[in-house]
């Protein structure tokens, strides 16, 4: 019996280890060909890489379609945070003052339409970022000289001083108004994709742009699906940046409910699903298909974002009351249990650069959350004078949002508010919540990293300049604006140029300040569970590109 128990324990430990390591498992020999079949509950709008901010959904696709001057290494684990040259032949030369980045453009790379990638395309692509209203144009790219004017008058954007092409030596130089420690990261994400100069200066919508990567989109219908085929013009120039793909085709089917996707994968009719498997299938797949499950740490936060500009959440006491009242363990239970998420109170995800455990909204305030404090929450509500206020919790209709929304309604009612749930299509929820004209009081979102630097969360989501009233592209959903915190962010950004460790300390302080102001009720840092078919091999999880589609092959 003991022997049996020990064996079982060892087997379970091995099973757990294999399932939780977020890197590629040793697989059989690579196989080329076949069709990789992906499933998702719904599409996510535009496939314009200069506009789409679908970091978890479309960005992994964009990473195998288009290239920037630099990109993240297509590898598993920690190395995937590294930046490597992509369309640039080498890493840039950076001036001592940190204001000038000079790249040499790689020669001989062609778009899928047969045109060669030129310096003109590089300049035009960065001007296009402003012309099409990139959601981060004012926050990330206005640091380029001329960027400010481009933000003000996008249609006539000119970066003649900011992005200077030198045809003679084949280089392009970025002149910045001030040093930016994260600038290379901002060039490495899909927003930095180089598209042909003649690409229309407006949202491409469902029309795919010409590709430089190993695949190109041949059809896209948000109601049905997306098809990718090999880009005939693609040749490997840097294995780290853009490896060739093993599969010949990638077919993404939309409108596949997660429960159906699980069954399809079990029956080998699908290879991978974007959405998390439904909670009531977890027990089944974790016991019957453990070798098809990959659990990966993710730098993301699941949070209730409160609108700090309208009642009742324009009152800090109410926001803090919700933070004290919400039972993060309950929210984690909805997500799938404690093995799939870590409770969190602050903005930065657990183990993210700059993360220092901080949870003032706990029965025992400290580094970690230790349980809700309803008494404190109710006392804050009494003080706020907002009891009886009506609140609408607006959530998307996919994933755990409806269930978590129901739970939030319950908590808010418990606090004396009159809360109701409004479930809208997940297709539009993200943009709907961003537009302040829609007066969303509180919503739920999973916020994913764009790159592994604290500014990516704190500056993008909480800087005054990332709140654009009346715009669908306003990632500061809470409309939070604190000039003192903004000043601290600026200091931290400057420090990052010379002393990364000191910068992280400063970002940590910013994180704690924002946590104290409570524009969010952060619930947990989710882990990513991928359920794949038996025939899918060489699953490779990158921190940036998630599953690297070009790395997998089919048995």
């Amino acid at each position, binding site marked *: 019996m003991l022997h049996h128990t020990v064996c079982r324990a060892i087997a379970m430990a091995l*099973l*757990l280890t294999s*399932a939780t390591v977020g890197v590629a498992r040793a697989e059989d020999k690579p196989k080329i060909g076949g069709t990789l079949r992906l499933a998702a509950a719904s599409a996510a709008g535009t496939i314009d890489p200069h506009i789409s901010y679908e970091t978890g959904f479309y960005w992994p696709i964009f990473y195998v379609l288009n290239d920037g001057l630099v990109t993240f290494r297509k590898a598993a684990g920690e190395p995937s945070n590294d930046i490597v040259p992509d369309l640039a032949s080498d890493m840039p030369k950076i001036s001592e003052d940190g204001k000038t980045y000079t790249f040499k453009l790689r020669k001989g790379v062609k778009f899928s339409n047969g045109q060669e990638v030129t310096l003109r395309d590089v300049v035009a692509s960065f001007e296009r970022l402003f012309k099409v209203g990139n959601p981060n144009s004012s926050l990330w790219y206005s640091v380029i000289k001329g960027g400010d004017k481009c933000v003000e008058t996008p249609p006539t954007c000119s970066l003649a001083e900011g992005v200077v092409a030198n045809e003679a030596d084949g280089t392009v130089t970025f002149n910045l108004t001030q040093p930016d420690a994260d600038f290379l990261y901002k060039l490495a994400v899909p927003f930095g994709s180089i598209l042909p100069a003649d690409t229309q200066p407006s949202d491409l919508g469902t029309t795919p742009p010409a590709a430089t990567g190993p695949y190109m989109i041949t059809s896209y219908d948000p109601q049905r699906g997306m098809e990718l085929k090999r880009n005939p013009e693609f040749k490997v120039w840097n294995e780290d940046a853009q490896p060739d793909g093993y599969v010949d085709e990638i077919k993404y089917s939309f409108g596949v409910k997660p429960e159906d996707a699980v069954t399809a994968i079990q029956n080998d009719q699908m290879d991978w699903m974007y959405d998390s498997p*439904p*909670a*009531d*299938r*977890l*027990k*089944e*797949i*974790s*016991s*019957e298909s*453990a070798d098809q*499950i990959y*659990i990966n740490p993710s730098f993301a936060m699941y949070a209730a974002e409160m609108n700090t500009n309208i009642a009742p959440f324009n009152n800090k006491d109410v926001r803090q009351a919700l933070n004290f009242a919400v*039972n993060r*363990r*309950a*929210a984690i*239970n*909805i997500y*799938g*249990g*404690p*093995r*799939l998420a870590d409770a969190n109170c602050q903005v930065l995800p657990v183990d993210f650069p700059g993360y220092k455990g901080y949870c003032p909204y706990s029965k025992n305030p400290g580094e970690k959350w230790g349980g809700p404090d309803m008494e404190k929450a109710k006392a804050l509500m009494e003080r706020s004078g907002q009891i009886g206020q009506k609140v609408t919790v607006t959530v998307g209709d996919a994933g755990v949002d409806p*269930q978590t929304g*129901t*739970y939030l*309604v*319950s*908590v808010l*009612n*418990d606090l004396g508010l009159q809360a*109701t*749930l409004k*479930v809208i299509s997940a297709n539009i929820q993200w943009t709907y919540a961003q537009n302040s004209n829609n007066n969303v009081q509180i919503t739920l979102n999973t916020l994913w990293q764009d790159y592994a630097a604290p500014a990516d969360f704190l500056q993008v989501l909480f800087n005054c300049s990332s709140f654009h009233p009346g715009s669908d592209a306003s990632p500061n959903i809470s409309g939070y604006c604190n000039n003192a915190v903004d000043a601290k962010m600026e200091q931290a950004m400057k420090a990052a140029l010379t002393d990364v460790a000191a910068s992280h300390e400063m970002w940590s302080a910013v994180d704690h300040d924002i946590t104290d102001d409570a524009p969010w009720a952060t619930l947990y840092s989710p882990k990513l*569970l991928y359920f794949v078919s038996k025939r899918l091999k060489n699953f490779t999880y990158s921190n940036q590109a998630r599953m690297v589609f070009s790395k997998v092959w089919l048995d």
Partner: protein
Amino acid sequence: MTTASNTSADPASKVPEAEQPNQFNVQIANGEASSAFAQKRLFQLRPKDKGNNPRGPWKTAFSRLLRDKLAVASFVFLAAIVLSTASATYYADHISQTDPFQSNLDGQIEINGDPAEIMAADSEGLGLGVTPIGPTWTGQYLLGADAQGRDVAARLLYGGQNSLIVAFASTALCLVLAGVIGTVSGFLGGIVDTILSRLLDIIWAFPIYLLAISLSIVLISTGLQIGPFHIPSNSLLLPITIIGVVYVPYVARPIRGQVLTLAKSDFVLASVCLGMPTARILVRDILPNVVTTLIVFAPIMMSLSILTESSLSFLSIGVQPPAASWGTIIQDGQGLLYTRPLVAIAPGLAIIITVLCLNFLGDGVKDAFDPKAKLRVGKG
């Protein structure tokens, strides 16, 4: 069709007003017993009926209904369901001891003295997932918990309240509207009939569920404004109004047909000839005959209303949270079909039983008020 001369020639036409042909024999005279024999037979029966059965038509129908065992059993079942749902608050307070509208995702209960998590983390395989507690078959969590850790049994009772209220109220609304429209349209005729009939045709042109779903989707975000009255989107009045209205043509049409026949019947013509006011004719001569038809329709319409309400609520466009109905509970259970199927099955069974009972009762009521049945009884 019985002619005026037939009736006027019959001595029975001289009976006092209190003994004038009631709605049952009038229906027979006009619609069923078209032959002179039947007519004669009917009036031959009357004295005998009067002698053996001094009860009025309502009592006669009621006694006939009581003899229908299936209908009585259905009524008893329905009464039990209504009483059960009426006891929802007592059940939640004293038996389940939980708030069925409050999430309880991190709670515990005691089962046989042992603590049990309401949402238990799974331990098999990779240990992923959290499963709500299953049926305990005791007071607390009798039928288990849903995905929010709420007591399914308590929610079933509260949900039943709303489902039955919506069904009853929408049926009442439908019957009143249909009764008025059908009667006015059939009796007044002319332009009024044309306009009302075309309006009914327009509603009838839509598939019933498509119309109900469309109206619900449109109104669920803003609510319904009727003159100075506003029905908010989370009010039960919204599904009541929508369901009540979409079924109006299905009842109003037969009523109109019946009124058209009644309007040409002897006793109505007699009233007209005597110069009775239209309102009096409608109230005293037409309405009593129409009411029985409406009563026959009532159980059937209630069962249809329950099904429609459940469908709308299942689609999130009927009863709105935090309120529950059997339809919303089925929707809650949809995400637990693999681990806790009872969450969806229990309200499904409740709907099936209620609808079956209403249909059986409806058949019984129809038979009780059916003139053929009366003739059969008379012959016997």
